[in-house]
């Protein structure tokens, strides 16, 4: 099966029109000694065979009840999201270069940008980036560009894979990255941050809720950062903004984050999307595509790609980023996801996450051999538990019971030895949480 429709008669006619006898003549320009041998790749499967083949491969993945987050989360995805991103008018369309023939995509992106701005309290959003990690790296590059300074402070509460991605992106730049340690209560101490910022600091990058689930006091941290004329890059979980302070409220300059929680499945960690929203003054410096509203010749409202002189296809090596293809379909999923809850429903969703996590937290920390790592801190849907039990054994037992247990934090630094990062979203019902607790009791 190779999805080519031409029959022999068509091919013959086409060759005649070209004025050649066989297809090989079209490749005459390629030196003979470079011509490939037959490719050793199995295939030729029919649709029916493919289905069977992949069902078998899929069966090698285990479907688990998840109590694990750390950047990718099991959330409810309403049917409408699947219906819309499953429409071939969206998934088979290209980047909307011909605006008159792409108004569906363009209006949806405009709506997406508006929703991201509403949620984050920021002025301007782009059309999406690849994921939360690359959005963070792009935010750092944006800060370096506009500030002409070269020092970047990153909280150690930022997702470790995001920090690694930032380091990769900055590998050959002059920028210096320094990591700010969290204090014993699992979040950043304002005075520590204050003392580290100097006049060469381009930006301070802080995640809230941080990697360990703790909600940072972004307001207090912001005032330190602002007073030193550094830019504030806030990495936020968009779902948590139903309850917690929005980046616009605490004057963040750039807000970024992972969009998977807004209607994309976990899919082994991708494809997801990253969002980026900035203050008005930074909009011309932003990476990625942006859609704007305009009018057509008859005065009707319409939408186009705009501020394009920032982009690689116009500005080439002077572009604000090399990004071209982004994660449009996942951003569309977010657009459909965000438009169906209403304000009350969306806040409620966030509150349910907190409540279920808190229910689990209260039960687990009171078990023998388990205690809260950050007893009094505020969290969203993740929390750290310290245990005297064997962590490998815990997760082994849970896996046997089809539960994806908490993340082992022993790689997250000395202070997290014997620590577990639990995640409880609205997807987990009381019975599932209770049976998790029951299993932990027996270990």
């Amino acid at each position, binding site marked *: *099966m190779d*999805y080519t429709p031409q029959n022999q008669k068509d091919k013959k006619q*086409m060759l005649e029109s*070209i004025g050649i006898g066989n*297809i090989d003549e079209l*490749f005459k320009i390629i*030196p003979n000694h470079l011509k490939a041998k037959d490719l050793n*790749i199995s*295939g030729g499967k029919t649709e029916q065979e*493919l289905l069977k083949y*992949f069902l078998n491969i899929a069966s090698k993945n*285990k*479907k688990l009840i998840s109590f694990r987050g750390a*950047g*990718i989360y099991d959330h409810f995805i309403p049917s409408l999201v699947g219906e819309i991103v499953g429409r*071939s*008018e*969206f998934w088979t369309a290209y*980047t909307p*270069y*011909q605006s*008159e*023939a792409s*108004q*569906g995509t363009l*209006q*949806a992106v405009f*709506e997406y940008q508006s929703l991201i701005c*509403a949620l984050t309290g920021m002025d301007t959003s782009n059309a999406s980036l690849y994921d939360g*990690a690359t959005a963070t790296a792009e935010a750092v590059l944006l800060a370096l560009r506009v500030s002409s300074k070269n020092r970047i402070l990153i909280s150690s509460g930022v997702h470790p894979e*995001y920090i690694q991605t930032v380091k*990769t992106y900055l590998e050959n730049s002059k920028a210096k990255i320094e990591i700010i340690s969290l204090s014993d209560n699992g979040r950043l101490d304002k005075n520590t941050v204050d003392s580290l910022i100097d006049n060469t600091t381009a930006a301070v990058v802080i995640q809230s809720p941080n990697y360990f689930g703790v909600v940072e006091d972004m307001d207090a941290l912001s005032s330190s950062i602002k007073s030193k004329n550094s830019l504030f890059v806030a990495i936020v979980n968009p779902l948590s903004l139903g309850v*917690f302070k929005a980046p*616009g*409220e605490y004057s963040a300059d750039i807000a970024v984050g992972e969009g998977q929680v807004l209607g994309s499945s976990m899919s*082994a*960690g991708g*494809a997801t999307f990253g969002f980026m929203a900035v203050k008005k003054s930074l909009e011309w410096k932003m990476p990625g595509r942006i859609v704007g509203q305009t009018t057509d*010749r008859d005065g*009707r409202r*319409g939408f186009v790609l*705009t501020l394009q*002189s920032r982009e*690689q*296809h116009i500005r080439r*090596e002077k572009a604000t*980023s*090399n990004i*071209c*293809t982004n994660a449009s*379909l996942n951003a569309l999923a977010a*657009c459909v996801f965000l438009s*169906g809850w209403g*304000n009350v429903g969306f806040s409620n969703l966030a509150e349910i996450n907190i*409540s279920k996590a*808190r*229910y689990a937290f209260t039960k687990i920390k009171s078990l023998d051999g388990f205690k809260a790592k950050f007893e009094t801190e505020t969290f969203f849907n993740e929390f750290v538990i310290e245990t005297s039990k064997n962590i490998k054994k815990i*997760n082994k037992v849970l*896996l046997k019971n089809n539960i*994806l247990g908490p993340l082992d934090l022993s790689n997250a630094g000395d202070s997290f030895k014997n620590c577990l990062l639990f995640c409880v979203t609205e997807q987990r019902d009381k019975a599932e949480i209770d049976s998790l607790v029951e299993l932990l009791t027996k270990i």
Partner: protein
Amino acid sequence: MEKLLNELSSECQPAYGVECDVAINAQVPENLKRSIPLGLPNIAENDLLRHFTNLSRKNYALSTVFYPLGSCTMKYNPLINERIARNDAFNNVHPYQPIEAIQGVLEVMYELEKDLCEVAGMDTFSLQQAAGAHGELAGLLVIAKYFKSIKQKRRKIIVPDSAHGTNPASAAFAGFEIVLLKSEPDGSISLDKLKEVLTPEVAAMMLTVPNTLGVFEKNIDEISKLVHDNGSLLYYDGANLNAVMGIVRPGDMGFDVMHINLHKTFSTPHGCGGPGSGPIGVKSFLETFLPVPRVEKKKDKYVLNYKKSKSIGKLKAFFGNFPVILKAYAYVKALGGKGLKNVSEQAVLNANYMLAKFKDKINIPAGNICMHEFVLSPKTLFKNDIRTIDIAKRLLDYGYYAPTIYFPLIVDEAIMIEPTETESKETLDKFINVVNKIILEEFCRDPQKLKDAPINTPVRRLNEVEAARKPILKWE
């Protein structure tokens, strides 16, 4: 005109809701609590479904029209791939699941890497990158790290002026200086000009083969020799790989690093702009620098190896855009080696058939034989102030997506056409007739029709200048 979501918002019962079977107990301290309104719309499910369905109908998509978008390889996206990728056993998988619980995911990645090596003639692949430009960045970082490891200071990357904009942008992003190489009128590389810019500071040269004018680089052997004799590396932009699968392999041509766009050559959909996937392939001496984790096979078990001390690190979180990788693998298993070769042959045949029908009527700067795409420059035919943009907009009226226009930059008023192998002769014939009708008849007889175009689209020509001058980037 379709209303915006905020205009649809009312006091109705919103579309979604979840119940909670534990007591609501949020306990958020005042200093952490959101105090500004959320500003989300309130819309019923029925109305939301109509809204987004109506929006979708304003798109020209590959599933509704012929999409001869040069350089983008808008080939048919097989439905079986989508069906496979919709399986919960692939979707409801957490990236940090224990290795034994994601063997299916790792098997797909491992096997696709292997098959891509065979197609490309490279020794190993990394699938982590989320798009072509992301692959370019990764490949260039690998090159930088390699020269660092052998303690050579090479700060420059040669990029021909016919290259995609992402090439110079990615090179700059990776910390290199760009040396622009002027290409010949057919987009090919002059060996003399290359020699002039090939200084000891050059780390690598980026090449698109066939080039963006659809011409195979006939001097590739000599280019490869010159570049390597200079101690530099050769980078293959895989955007045009659809022309040469099973015919010639980048690795055999001397390329050291390359990327592939799975969302072009390997049939995965473009999703109105993404997600894509940009695997990079390298020769074995560069393997040690690839992003982590690497998928490896130990006995019968797939494992993830994060312990690669020379790796450039991570390009994004987790492993890559897995659903895209999965669909590409399904495509490879449908076609096999033979099918892939047939794809390239048909893609090249389709393009040449179209070219043959145009060549006597419209100027073609790169000659009468092409690979999988070709570029028209109709400038000499222009009358009555008509330009390429007008032809493109008029094509929309006839129910076609427009070809790529004004690219490559080295061709005046360029129209870049890539039919792909999945279009029938009948589709091509109809399109050829329409283009000829526009250029040969409407140009003279009805120029106003072109200036007024499009008239059959949901909106008429949009004012891009106004959009950029007074940006409105969200609803009020």
